[in-house]
């Protein structure tokens, strides 16, 4: 007997054209809006930003770069400990920084000073942290920013959980979270995308693909044609973007942000960039990459590109040298404040371990104080 039960015919769902659809990572497409010379390649996708905003974006990228370069310099002077440079990755964070709002959340890894500062974290706090004081993660003027998270990829799950809270509490908030190319090999990366997809939470995952996980190139991390394609397996939109193109990053973030706010859930953005500096100040990149490669990437520098665009449009009229001097003065002032921060006390080690400190810790602290007294009286 032939069954008269018919399987439903597949209906092709007509989705509105979106950049996430148009730049399908399965075809290894890349979203790029201006080229290395600042020429607009794709007028249609150019974000609708007024000149003042573009100028603000450039200044923010410049401030990030100067802060970063000075951090490396302070470290070299022996005034700060190990520091991971951000040099070359400014466009990604500035684009996110223009979109993220006061109540939106940021779960950073450890190479995101640009968007951290956009959220209100001060250079002083960043310096304090890298001077070896946890008070640098007690962000006094930044709301909803998690401390720097060193265990690779683990912060992505925190972002997913925050996304669940936002949805559960019916708040209009979005979570921005970051990971490097190496971090995409961690189990937590896949688990976070999977949970975020199942829970349909408002989280924007950004991979800062800066080509290297310390010394290991991205081709040794994965056989995938790109990193954005990993979103496909989890049923969420993914896109590969030229991370050194401020406008492309802005366009991608705008759509991801609108998606998140309108209940469409998480997105994955792979931002293609280059870590121009070392992994950290303890690393020597000459061991694993060539000068030629570095020079190739220099041509894509995000600041130079945006500057060329502004010059062509004739909107940049500032005295850049003066601006840099002003930035340096401000940053140095903040560095000095960090250097003169209240001395680290014994209680700083103990008092934040628990909200409600157990007696065992109180006893350990008291024992050490007794030792300190003994040492003092012995002099």
């Amino acid at each position, binding site marked *: 007997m032939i069954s008269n039960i018919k399987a439903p015919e597949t209906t092709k769902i007509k989705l509105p054209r979106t950049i996430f659809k148009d730049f399908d990572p399965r075809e290894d497409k890349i979203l790029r809006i201006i080229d290395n010379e600042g020429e607009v390649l794709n007028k249609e996708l150019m974000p609708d930003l007024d000149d003042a905003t573009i100028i603000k974006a450039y200044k923010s990228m410049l401030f990030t770069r100067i802060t970063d370069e000075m951090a490396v310099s302070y470290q070299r002077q022996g005034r700060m400990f190990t520091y991971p440079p951000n040099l070359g990755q400014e466009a990604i964070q500035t684009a996110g920084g223009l979109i993220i709002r006061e109540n939106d959340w940021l779960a950073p890894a450890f190479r995101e000073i640009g968007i951290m500062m956009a959220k209100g974290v001060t250079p002083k706090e960043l310096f304090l942290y890298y001077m070896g004081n*946890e008070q640098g993660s007690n962000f006094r003027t930044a709301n909803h920013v998690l401390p720097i998270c060193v265990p690779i990829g683990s912060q992505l*799950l925190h972002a*997913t*959980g*925050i996304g669940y*809270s936002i949805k559960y509490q019916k708040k209009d908030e979005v979570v921005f979270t970051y990971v490097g190319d190496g971090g995409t090999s961690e*189990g937590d990366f896949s688990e976070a995308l999977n*949970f975020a997809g199942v829970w349909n939470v408002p989280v924007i995952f950004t991979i800062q693909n800066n080509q290297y996980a310390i010394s290991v190139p991205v081709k040794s991390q994965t056989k995938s044609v790109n990193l954005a394609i990993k979103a496909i397996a989890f049923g969420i939109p993914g896109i590969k973007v030229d991370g050194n193109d401020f406008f492309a990053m802005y366009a991608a973030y705008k759509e991801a942000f609108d998606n998140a706010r309108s209940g469409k859930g998480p997105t994955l953005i792979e931002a293609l960039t280059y870590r121009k500096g070392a992994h950290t100040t303890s690393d020597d990149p000459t061991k694993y990459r060539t000068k030629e490669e570095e020079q190739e990437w220099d041509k894509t520098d995000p600041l130079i590109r945006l500057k060329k665009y502004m010059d062509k449009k004739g909107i940049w009229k500032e005295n850049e040298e003066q601006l840099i001097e002003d930035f340096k003065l401000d940053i140095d002032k903040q560095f000095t404040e960090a250097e003169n921060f209240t001395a680290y006390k014994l209680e700083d080690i103990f008092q934040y*371990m628990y909200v409600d400190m157990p*007696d065992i810790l109180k006893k350990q602290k008291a024992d050490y104080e007794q030792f300190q007294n003994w040492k003092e009286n012995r002099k």
Partner: protein
Amino acid sequence: MSVMTIVQAINNALDIKLEEDKSVVVYGEDTGLEGGVFRVTEGLQKKYGVERVFDSPLAESAIVGAGLGMALSGLRPVVELQFDGFTYPAFNQIISNVSRMHNRSRGVYKIPMVIRFPYGGGINALEHHSESPEALYAHIPGLRVVIPSTPHDAKGLLISAIESDDPVIFMEPKRIYRAIKQEVSNEKYTIPLGKAKVVTEGTDVTIVAFGAMIRECQKAIVLAKEAGISVELIDLRTIYPIDKETIAESIKKTGRLIVVAEAPESFSVGAELMAIANEEAFLYLEAPPKRVMGFDTIVPLAQGEQMYMITPDRIFYEIERTVKF
């Protein structure tokens, strides 16, 4: 009052907290619809909805890591990991983030989170289903580790754990999940974390135990009594922070200490108790403190398990040797 098993008492504690606090959410593998593999959360999804009591995808690191995100953004997650031996994929999140976020952020973020899981052997289970990893978690600064041994304690301790602003590892003795029934108040009550309980007073020897071993110790005490030995039994209830005061006071009284636990002996809670005996009651000791604990081996499968598990006669054997030392 109602007669409850440990399973029912934990369910009742979750029910009370879900009812009175909208920020409490409960999830894990099979925790929602099915009520967990041990049915601890049975009926709660029906009562509180799928947004508050739900099944998560199968990934322990994500269950805990996402729970941390929830805890720092206004919720009080009570997450369930299915078995002791399945907690290890979540270890990185627990040790590297959950236990540290309050310290790392200098108090900006509190982590009011409970990680529950059944632990311990004696149920003829598969590998990875019979382990006692309390020392692993007790060693991590920033955590509290709690283990109940009765339905009454399970309810009061779990409510305290959920109300704690610090993260709590809540280990449930699966072997006695349903083996012990007890009158338990239907009202809300709490039992303070960090306080041990003197279960039985005695004068000749102190036994410190917790979880499913309390019942085994009580059986051994019957044998000891017949032999004319008076045993003081202390139930730790909280592994960390350990209640040194109650333990030291008891050792000073009896002069002898035996620790009974299922976990491998070396570098264990038993080892910590040896240190407490030495540091806090050295001059009172009349016999070397003794550990009656698991071997430094994997918990054997069913055919070998009876030799691994601590039995009342083995406890009594050590009581006699210690008292006659």
